[in-house]
């Protein structure tokens, strides 16, 4: 055992170095905005930038919309497949894995072709409609993770038996949904929600090609034009993602939260 423990620590040390070094370097760089001294000047510039606040707010709101839409699509679907339509399971799982197979850039390319101003459903015609399209696009991106998390959560609480027990006690389907199922899968939904938030906040491809004022394109713009602010933004982005993951750990059950589809 001793030999493998030493090897384990060596590997861990190398890994930790590779992963922590860039974070340290970025943080150190972000403190160097004012010549000759370490300060948080870059951060105050960033937080003071109206664009930062506007785009972050936009992406945050969009993330919330995505989460709600995603939950509305995923929860009933996972429930129905588990309970009444088990023979559709294969098809549904295949569909939920598609967003991982087809790259985001291809999907948004399809959107532009399908929903441009001269098509049958001109979603890119107005700002509001494009926002909606973006939200749906994000639901698509988050679908694999959302579905996997909620499905695992439902399996863990054995929805079938819970529903049958509630039915035998005389509950209507809306009561069952609201009072029995939802509270029990809440932690799974929350875990999926935080993961979605993390994905949406930093997303670039969709937002950029659909020309929306989201956080991702803002980051790219900053990266192209400024020197110190991007590193501050990088640290902020990392902390936001870390917070999301931390919240997943708190709300997710056992290891059902961080799964890879």
């Amino acid at each position, binding site marked *: 055992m001793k030999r493998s423990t030493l090897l*384990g620590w060596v*590997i861990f040390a190398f890994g930790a170095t590779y992963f922590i070094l860039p974070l340290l370097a970025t943080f*150190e760089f972000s403190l160097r905005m004012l010549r000759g001294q370490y300060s948080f000047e870059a951060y105050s510039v960033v937080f003071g930038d109206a664009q930062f606040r506007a785009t972050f707010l936009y992406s945050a709101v969009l993330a919330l919309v995505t989460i709600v839409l995603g939950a509305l699509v995923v929860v009933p679907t996972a429930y129905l497949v588990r309970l009444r339509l088990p*023979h559709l399971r294969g098809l549904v799982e295949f569909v939920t894995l598609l967003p*991982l197979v087809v790259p985001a850039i*291809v999907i948004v390319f399809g959107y532009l072709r399908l929903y441009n101003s001269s098509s049958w459903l001109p979603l890119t015609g107005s700002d509001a409609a494009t926002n909606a399209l973006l939200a749906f696009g994000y639901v698509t991106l988050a679908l694999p993770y959302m579905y996997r998390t909620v499905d695992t959560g439902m399996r863990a609480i054995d929805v079938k038996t819970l529903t049958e027990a509630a039915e035998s006690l005389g509950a209507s389907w809306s009561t069952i949904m609201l009072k029995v199922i939802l509270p029990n899968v809440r932690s799974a939904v929350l875990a999926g929600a935080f993961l979605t938030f*993390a994905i949406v906040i*930093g997303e670039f491809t969709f937002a950029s090609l659909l020309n929306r004022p989201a956080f991702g394109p803002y980051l790219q713009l900053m990266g192209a034009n400024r020197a110190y602010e991007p*590193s501050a933004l990088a640290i902020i982005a990392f902390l936001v993602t870390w917070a999301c993951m931390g919240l997943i750990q708190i709300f997710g059950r056992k290891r059902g939260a961080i799964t890879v589809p």
Partner: protein
Amino acid sequence: MTKGRLSLGSLLSPAMLGMLPFFVFALLFLILPTCILMVGAFQDQAGNFTLDNLAKLLNQPQLLASYWISIKVSLASAIGGALFGFLIAYAIVQGGLPAWVRSSVLTFSGVASNFAGVPLAFAFLATFGRVGLVTVLLRDWFGVNIYSHDIGFNLLSFSGLTLTYLYFQIPLMVLIIVPALEGLKREWREASQILGGTNFHYWRYVALPVLWPSILGATLLLFANSFGAVATAYALTGSSLNIVTIQLYAQIRGDVLHDPNLGFALAFGMILITCLSNGAYIWLRGRSERWLR
């Protein structure tokens, strides 16, 4: 449930109607957009069926080169990610390390696998760029200039992009492989030992063969993941490194190829490659699950 023929009644049952939002959504925002691109790849400007787009694609050295570079970067970051990810996963599962190491590495992997795009590009610029922390430290402490002619390292290149991609590939590998490693029953190792085997025998005849489908499958997943990545490359190398996703991005933005259908062909090529890769991953995963029932 009943596997009878689909009657109109069963199609209109409340359960099926409840599935409608999902299927409509999937159709509108996933299936149709993909299909329309694939169809468009085989159409000319007037909408007639043609293989010209694919022919043009295969005849444009610049576009073929971009596929090739994408494949090289994806292959390199997939294999590198698989190798180092496996080592790290092994260390935290069987390395005899304390419990906090495992949970913190898994949490960090969850974060890092999502940490792509501008932030990542900038983190690596700050580390390995011309005035990056590590570059400077190596120069000042060890007198080694990695940007010199002899070593010729450049972050804004194939090797630099691969190095950067590893930052989210390795954690992804860790997340996939840790469950597989934990699926290795302790009794297998003990059975191998009591039958006279050393650690080497166990790994050679039992553990690696059992893990092989998962490892290969994960590598394929990493390959597809890298192939479709845009934001990091865009932020790091801009349009200087000619990978497919950048090409496609530029094409969508401003039709730089002066031929919209060629863009569809580009997208079709991408879908083909990622489909094959992911298809193989799913097949391998199915095989390994069968063994380990």
